[in-house]
Each structure stands twice: as C-alpha cells, then as structure tokens.
C-alpha cells in the first residue's frame, strides 16, 4: 500500500482567510515539508480547521494542487450508504470501476484494522460516535493519497483504541505529507515529525518542534515529557 506518486510539500503563501468581516489569517506563509507528518496544536477557535480547509482548497482563494485525502472534524458519513460503501466513497465518486473493485479488499482490511470488521454492512446511524469516527478514518486511509489532511481524527476514541489507531495511521501514512490537527500534545509528540503550535488572531505558527526518534514514538520517553510541558506552555501563550 505505497502510493506511486512521491509526496509533495504543502505551501501556504501569503494566505488571507476571512469569514465575512472576521479575519482569521492575514498574510500567512507556512510550509509543510514533503513526506513528513506535521501536527498542529492550537487553542480552540484559533483557525486550525480553517487552515486545513485552506490547504484542501476549500476556501475562496485557495486551490488544491495535488490529490489529497481530507478527514474533517465531523465524520461526514453518508447515511444512505453502508459503512463499507462509505469507506469506498472516493472510488465510487471517481467512477473508475476497476479501481473500485481493487480497492474493496483494502477497504475491508482497513475496516478490520479499525475494529469495524463485523459492521461493514451497517448504516452509519447504527454506529456509536467513536465507531463513526473510525469509519471516517478508514475512508481517509483508503483514499491512499500522497497528501493527507486530518482534523482531530481521534477525538472520540478511548485511550486504548486511540493508541492502536495512532500506530495504524503512523504505519500507513509513512512517507506521505500529512497535516494533522490534534488537541492532545502527547498525540502530537507520538505522531509528528514536526509539531507547530498555532496562535492568533491573526493566525501565526510557532517555531516547528521536532522531536527525535522514529514514529510512532513512545509517550513514556522522558525527552518527550519535557517537550510536553513546552507545548502546554506555548499553548497557554507563554512560549518558553
């Protein structure tokens, strides 16, 4: 399950983001290095989701340069499709029958990985909140794109499931350009090559923090605990 395309970097260049009169970002420039996972932290409402939507080309003025997989803050499952069909949504929408057939096996495997093997025929409204989030995660991973954008992908999962799925994501997303919004500093430390704390308004990114060690990292690592404190302080608005 390696994509053939080499993952590109993501660039934000002098971006303006505004909703009506409310300016979220102004002249924002930022780079997300190719083939790496960048975790974004930031206070609620600072503009993380907006930035991600910008990167996905969903905001006015933004463009989507390369194929991406996008996992939004809400699960966005289609209620009329089974869980399996939801996971395969991208292939169904692109209408390539051969690709769809060949993807089905992977979709089932992914559902198995996220613990929904027995639920692939259920409708989304028969799932619990965490199950829905896992289905959305499986859909995003199934897309198999060089660039992956994820908005709080594990927010509704219990600690154990979260830990396992972090491993899964780290494995499947290796060598892709990933931008992941999270509220959990430990999650960022476990999964991010780079971690950036966003502040604002206007939206600004702190210096990238680059913990060492291969992904996924061990959260019990003492070095990480120090960074944890630093992240919290930065979040609190007191850069150390």
């Amino acid at each position, binding site marked *: 399950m390696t994509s053939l395309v080499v993952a590109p970097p993501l660039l934000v260049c002098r971006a303006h983001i505004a909703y009506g009169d409310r300016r979220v970002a102004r002249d924002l420039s930022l780079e997300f290095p190719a083939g790496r996972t960048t975790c974004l932290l930031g206070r609620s409402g600072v503009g993380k989701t907006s930035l991600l*939507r910008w990167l*996905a*080309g*969903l905001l006015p003025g933004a463009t*989507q340069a390369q*194929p*991406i*997989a*996008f996992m*939004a803050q*809400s699960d*966005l499952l*289609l*209620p*009329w499709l089974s869980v399996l069909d939801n996971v395969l*949504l*991208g292939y*169904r*929408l*692109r*209408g390539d029958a051969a690709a769809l057939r060949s993807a089905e096996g992977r979709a089932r495997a992914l559902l198995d990985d996220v613990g929904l093997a027995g639920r692939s025929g259920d*409708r989304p*409204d028969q799932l619990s909140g965490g199950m829905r989030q896992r289905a959305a995660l499986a859909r995003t991973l199934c*897309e198999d794109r060089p660039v992956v954008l994820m908005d709080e992908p594990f927010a509704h999962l219990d600690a154990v499931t979260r830990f396992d799925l972090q491993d899964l994501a780290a494995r499947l997303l290796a060598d892709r350009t990933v931008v992941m919004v999270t509220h959990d500093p430990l999650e960022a430390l476990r999964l991010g090559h780079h971690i950036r704390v966003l502040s604002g308004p206007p939206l600004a990114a702190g210096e990238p923090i680059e913990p060492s060690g291969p992904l996924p990292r061990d959260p019990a690592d003492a070095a990480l605990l120090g960074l944890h404190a630093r992240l919290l302080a930065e979040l609190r608005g007191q850069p150390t």
Partner: protein
Amino acid sequence: MRPLVTAVGLLLGWEGLVWLTGAPPYILPPPSRVLTVLIERLDLLLAEALWTAAEMLIGLLLGLALGAALAVAFAASAGWRRWALPLVVASQAIPVIAIAPLLVLWLGYGMASKVAMAALVIFFPVVSTLYDGLRRTDQGWLDLARTMDANPRAILLQIRLPAALPALASGARIAAAVAPIGAVIGEWVGASAGLGYLMTLSLARGQTPLAFAALVVLCLLGLALYHATDRAARRLVPWQSQGE
C-alpha cells in the same frame, strides 16, 4: 378496521353538513343517496374509474420522471435554470382552456393529450421540491466530495440526489394527491370516458347523486394513490426516521 371507522365518521360528518347548511340534494346530495347510487351504478363507476386510474397512474409516472429529470437539469446547469425555470413556473399558470386545443392539435384526441395535461399538473411539485432539496446539500459532504476529485456529475448523482430524496418524497406525495385532479383536467381536453367525464355528464343532466358518487370514487382513488406513494416514499429514505 380503522379506515372503516374513519369512513363512517366522514359520512356522518357529511350528513351533518347537509343537515346544518340545508344544502339541497341537487347541489350537495346526502351521503345516503350517494351511497345508494354508488352501489346501484357500481359497474358503470368502476368502468369509468379504470380510465381515470390509468390516466392518473401514467400521468404520475410521467410527471415523476419529467419532474425529476428537470430538477436534476436545473441543479446541474445554470443555463437550464435561467431558460427553463421561468417556463416551468409559468406553465403552472396556464389554464386548461387555453392549452387544450394546442394539445389536441399536437397529440390528437386520444389518451396522449389527456395524460400530457395530467402530467403538466403533476410534474411541478416534483420539480420544485426536488430542486429545493438538491440545492440544500450539506456543505460538508460537498467539500468532502471535492477533495475526492469527484466531477460535478458524480457529486450530483451520488451525493446531492440521494441527500435530496426526502425532498423528492415530499414532492411525490403532493404529486400523488393532485394526480386525480390532473386526470380530471386531462379529461376536459376532450374525453368520452373517465370519472371526470361522468361527473360533467351527470351534473349537466341534473343527476347530482351520480356525480357525487363519481367524486367519491375519485377521492378514494386519490387516497389509495396517496397512501401507496407515501409507503413507497418512506421506503425511499429508510435512513430517515419519520414519525407517523
């Protein structure tokens, strides 16, 4: 059992209305008289009802197909929206008396012109509600589909259309309810059979009870079609719980 209770209740209400307003039988015959005629002339009524039911059904199917197709065209193309939408709205303002000779000219006096007239009445609620539904799609879904490189066609057919099915169901219910009058109006184009024809005929001859018996049969046909459509509509959107 319950429909029976309802029917008896309605008949009592009707009788009460006759009694209260003092409407003479040649304007509003009492239900007892209408029932008698209904039973006496059942064979005639059923024969005419068959015609009207056929017009209703074909008109409804045609109206649903045409309405759905137009709504999709409106949702898909600004050109259709700009040029055809005013036409569609304006079409609802055309009385049968103005359009009947045209229909006859193009389609002749056969069933085709009647069905066309019926479909003209029936298709509009379908276009209107479905088009409304198609432009109300959850923005999140549309965004998701865009990130998946879906073309507008796929988005329309696989996201917007299923999401608009509850709206379509709503339109289909209205369409089913107006199908009887659509068929009767169709018969006005020039018919020699059907409940509408029978009604006009018997009203002209002063046989008001027979006219109302035909009306009762027409209403029953309408109710049956409405309930069948309602059931089908509920089945159309199983993911959406609907109260009674």
